[in-house]
């Protein structure tokens, strides 16, 4: 029977069928983070003689708040650290770490065809590589630590074909938000989203990660892209990947990992990339978005409007802002920072602006390219890597009523701080909006005088 990409990865990992349509599914890679690992680690230490199925399949990363900001976060980080050390688990810690969904790919710990889990919902990011990657709860993570497997029912597969090429300034983030708006905020619940089509093939790995990162925001179990030469070239030479012939052997297998042409899907959705425009969210979930040229919709949900302090019909570009943030597992990789720097070069921000690289490796690369000077010359704060204010944890949390434009993934009530109002957008839109103090695109910005640009350097 012809199979989807997901079917092939699933079949290669089913250990055994279980009652009730469940399966025991082998896990190739576990990303263990400080927020969700200490609890199952303590339970296993107490009740299961501290056993671990296979330490070599685990990567530990202190990521959400690192370095620790207070006693609680220090205790968490130390719990992960001591557990990793006790079991010989490879660990990325203060100075070499960052957001786990940025660190894992850049170190080469994800690859096509594997199963990967982590106690974080944005684990779907790694589907960009053609892996089956999903977020799980702490108890399920304990099961993986103990037995190397998860229990789950096989999800359905939804195929999203994106034809043509992105243009008109639209980015992978705009595509991700458009997919969510098209399918609906819970439109892909119970399904894997398999992305296909010429527009997907044209995306870089960083763009594919941005796209797959937001699959969860449509309710999907995860997102997946077919591996190709772009995938292989990204992984070549990465720390956790073999070198030489061994890598080439793996790459040859990855090249064969494609959906069969006549595979069956739960549904097929067609999207024309050329029609995608720059979008911004106006509401309180990522499905509530609109073209940046548009207005708050007439049929907008009343509770969302009340929380956001908006009235229907208000033009999006007229919305005045209190803060801007570029960061997160969605949009804080080097290409995102380069795009933001291109907007900010020679300009000044009007509102408090925080720029947080996705990992320490991204930070170092940005600094080699002088991007940190561009940001700081523009008056923005350039920080170390962290999840930061994305989930209201640290380094730029907003106050009640504050309106923030953010390159992150969730605009839920209170997400970036109690009472805070979040508008999700691309790094380029966040940068342009920071300069004008209202929601804007770079084409609205006055041209930078050559001498001003030079003086600011």
């Amino acid at each position, binding site marked *: 029977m012809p199979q989807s990409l997901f079917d092939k990865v699933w079949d290669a990992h089913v250990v*055994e069928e279980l009652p009730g349509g469940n399966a025991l599914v082998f896990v190739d890679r576990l990303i263990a983070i400080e927020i969700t690992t200490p609890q199952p680690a303590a339970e296993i230490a107490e009740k*299961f003689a501290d056993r671990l199925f296979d330490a070599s399949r685990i990567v530990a990363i202190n990521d959400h*708040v690192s370095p620790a900001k207070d006693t609680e976060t220090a205790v968490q980080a130390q719990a992960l650290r001591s557990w990793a050390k006790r079991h010989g688990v490879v660990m990325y810690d203060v100075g070499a770490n960052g957001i786990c969904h940025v660190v894992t790919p850049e170190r080469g710990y994800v690859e096509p065809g594997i199963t990967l889990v982590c106690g974080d919902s944005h684990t779907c990011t790694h589907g960009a590589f053609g892996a089956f990657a999903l977020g799980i709860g702490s108890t399920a993570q304990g*099961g993986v630590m103990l037995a190397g497997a998860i229990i789950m029912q096989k999800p359905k597969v939804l195929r999203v074909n994106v034809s043509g090429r992105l243009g008109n300034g639209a980015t992978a983030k705009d595509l991700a938000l458009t997919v969510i708006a098209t399918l609906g905020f819970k439109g892909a619940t119970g399904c894997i989203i398999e992305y296909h089509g010429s527009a997907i093939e044209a995306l870089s790995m960083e763009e594919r990660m941005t796209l797959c990162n937001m699959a969860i925001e449509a309710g999907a179990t995860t997102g997946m892209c077919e591996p190709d030469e772009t995938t292989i070239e990204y992984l070549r030479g990465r720390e956790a990947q073999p070198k030489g012939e061994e890598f080439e052997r793996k790459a040859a297998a990855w090249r064969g990992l494609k959906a069969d042409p006549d595979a069956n899907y739960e549904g097929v959705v067609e999207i024309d990339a050329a029609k995608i425009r720059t979008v911004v969210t106006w509401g309180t*979930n990522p499905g509530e978005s609109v073209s940046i040229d548009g207005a708050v919709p007439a049929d907008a949900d009343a509770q969302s409007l009340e929380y956001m302090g908006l009235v229907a019909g208000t033009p999006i570009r007229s919305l005045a802002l209190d803060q801007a943030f570029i960061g997160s597992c969605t949009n804080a990789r080097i290409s995102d920072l380069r795009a933001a720097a291109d907007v900010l070069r020679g300009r000044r921000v009007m509102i408090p602006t925080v720029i947080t690289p996705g990992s320490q490796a991204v930070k170092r690369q940005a600094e080699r390219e002088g991007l940190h000077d561009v940001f700081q010359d523009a008056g923005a704060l350039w920080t170390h890597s962290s999840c930061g204010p994305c989930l209201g944890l640290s380094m730029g949390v907003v106050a009640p009523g504050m309106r923030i434009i953010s390159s992150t993934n969730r605009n839920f009530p209170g997400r970036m701080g109690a009472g805070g109002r979040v508008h999700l957008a691309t790094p380029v839109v966040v940068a342009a909006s920071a300069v004008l103090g209202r929601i804007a695109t770079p084409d609205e910005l006055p041209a930078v005088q050559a001498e001003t640009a030079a003086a600011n350097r």
Partner: protein
Amino acid sequence: MIVESRVLALPRANVDTDQVFPGKYLSLISREGFGEKLFEGMPGGRELLASKPGARIIVVGDNFGCGSSREHAVWALVDYGFKAIVAPSLARIFHENAYNNGLVPVIVRDPQAHAACLAAERLSIDVANETIRAEGCEIARFELDPLKKEFLLRGGFMEYLASKVDTVRAWTRRRVS
């Protein structure tokens, strides 16, 4: 097992786990006192809770528990005292977490039956027989995953996985060869 109590009705759709348990508390390792933080992230959430003391059943809207995978959301509901959650649908990870922590996930898709649950002052949920009764009359039936129902009624998720270790190891040896 029968769960019977007053009902807390929260009809709103898409209540995400940041509203159930705000991210700023994710740095807590111990699960103690999580109930005190329940719904702190939801506008009017704490007031809603205070309006129905003693409720052990919460009836919620579509797609409850979406967003972050934090099991803390379920821990907070359980710590507060909830034993069952009734919804037209639950987000995948939340649903799984509910099974693993003894919070009975009751899916009632039929809009009329769900509306009846929301309107009820008290409900009686028969977990073993998968039925819901209000004022002595059956108003809805639901289905639980037969395997996870065992974990729900008797616990033992981790013990079950521990019993599979040899099977998984044997599988990995076959896979390599």
